[in-house]
């Protein structure tokens, strides 16, 4: 648990900002990140919706629980939509935070149309076709990760904790897959944006390893990544 067998000795550089979306799992994400930090490193961890703080961060986490329309409304009312789209540093979307990185979501809530999202990663969120298995897809399932650096030290078949009913399909942006009925994207990425459908903050050692990998990323990590190259071609 607390003894994470990773490159824990590596110092976490610069500010980490968890975007305050006002959603319910903010504290879980913060606690998970804090568990990986020294007292000193925690002084550079912020939960905030301050635009300047987000823009200047070394890395940014976009959490999310609830429905896509509610979460997008929260980002809009805080004036964060264009801010997030313009970020050049590593950005990690978790669960609904991952889904918000896409073009749109069919999770409509009370709306009559699909919910427009941040349109950073060119894929769309639709209901998971569980082929008769229970929904929501809730519990520990295995992932097949690519060589993306977020999965450094995470072996194929690792169990992580999922809770969702909607999913991103397999696409050029898929960096990990999982199966519950159909096979879907357990994680997607484009350039400096990474999205995890599962909850790394609740996924024991495997999740902690991914969070630690993310905390070790800096503005430089994706600076040289070839723009517009689908990650599947580059990494699989």
């Amino acid at each position, binding site marked *: 648990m607390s003894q994470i067998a990773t490159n824990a000795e590596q110092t976490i550089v610069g500010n980490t900002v968890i975007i305050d979306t006002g959603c319910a799992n903010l504290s879980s994400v913060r*606690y998970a990140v804090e568990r990986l930090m020294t007292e000193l490193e925690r002084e550079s961890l912020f939960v905030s919706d301050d635009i300047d703080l987000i823009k200047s961060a070394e890395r940014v986490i976009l959490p999310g629980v609830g429905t896509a329309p509610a979460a997008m409304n929260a980002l809009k009312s805080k004036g964060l939509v264009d801010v997030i789209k313009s970020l050049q540093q590593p950005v990690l979307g978790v669960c609904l935070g991952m889904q918000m990185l896409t073009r749109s979501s069919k999770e409509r809530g009370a709306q009559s149309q699909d919910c427009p999202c941040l349109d950073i990663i060119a894929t769309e969120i639709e209901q998971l076709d569980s082929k008769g298995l229970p929904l929501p897809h809730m519990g*520990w399932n295995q992932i097949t990760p690519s060589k993306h650096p977020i999965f450094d030290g995470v072996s194929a078949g690792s169990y992580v904790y999922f809770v969702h009913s909607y999913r991103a399909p397999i696409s050029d942006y898929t960096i990990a897959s999982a199966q519950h009925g159909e096979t879907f994207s357990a994680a997607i990425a484009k350039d400096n944006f990474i999205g995890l459908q599962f909850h790394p903050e609740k996924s024991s050692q495997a999740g902690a390893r991914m969070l630690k990998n993310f905390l070790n990323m800096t503005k430089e990590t994706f600076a040289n990544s070839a723009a517009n190259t689908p990650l599947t071609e580059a990494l699989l």
Partner: protein
Amino acid sequence: MLAKRIVPCLDVKEGKVVKGVQFRNHEIVGDIVPLAQRYAEEGADELVFYDITASAHDRVIDKSWVSRVAERIDIPFCVAGGIRSIEQAREKLAFGADKISINSPALTDPSLIARLQDEFGRQCIVIGIDSYYDAATDSYKVKQFTGDEAATKDTQWYTQDWVSEVQKQGCGEIVLNVMNQDGVRQGYDIKQLSMIRAICDVPLIASGGAGTMAHFKDVFAEANVDAALAASVFHKGIIDIQDLKRYLKDNHIAVRL
């Protein structure tokens, strides 16, 4: 493949883990955080904290233990007991609980489920159901207020109908608490759980009756439930979670090891 979950349940009273016999004579077992941490390290897939302080009293109770758990535990956990309103649910979720479980208040007002779902999403709304076999009518029925022996009463709900209703209202998961008619720790009620499984489209957690490792194997293999909840076999050290999971794996049940 989705792993079958093993879920220890801990009774909490005024911030401490307690155990009692038939809801009486509670003695303190220990602090919540170290016990929760121990179960997480032993391989529990999820934890349920049943807050028995809450249901009996209306006074304001210190819930900071929820955040102390969330700070230290890296697996999901659910808080049950005494949640009757959106605000009470919001408090637990804000402190870091992943799910909240509702039982009696949902029977009093089923629309509470829909309102909670609208507010927080169905993924964190768990409905607990206390079901019993009614020999007179040869059917399964739902009891309310089982946390307090004097207040426990029968409801008009047949278990199947209530299971359908709570899904219609938008719950994300069901814990069906029912005991094999042979008695305590004589196994899960496979017959009833299989029947409910057939009409339950959300994840189903079996609760009540676990006494041996074979009981867990049977409830997964025969009733096809998603998770099995147990308390005393873990608290009393009758079953070790690691041993249980290895046993289940040897018996071709998908588990996270």
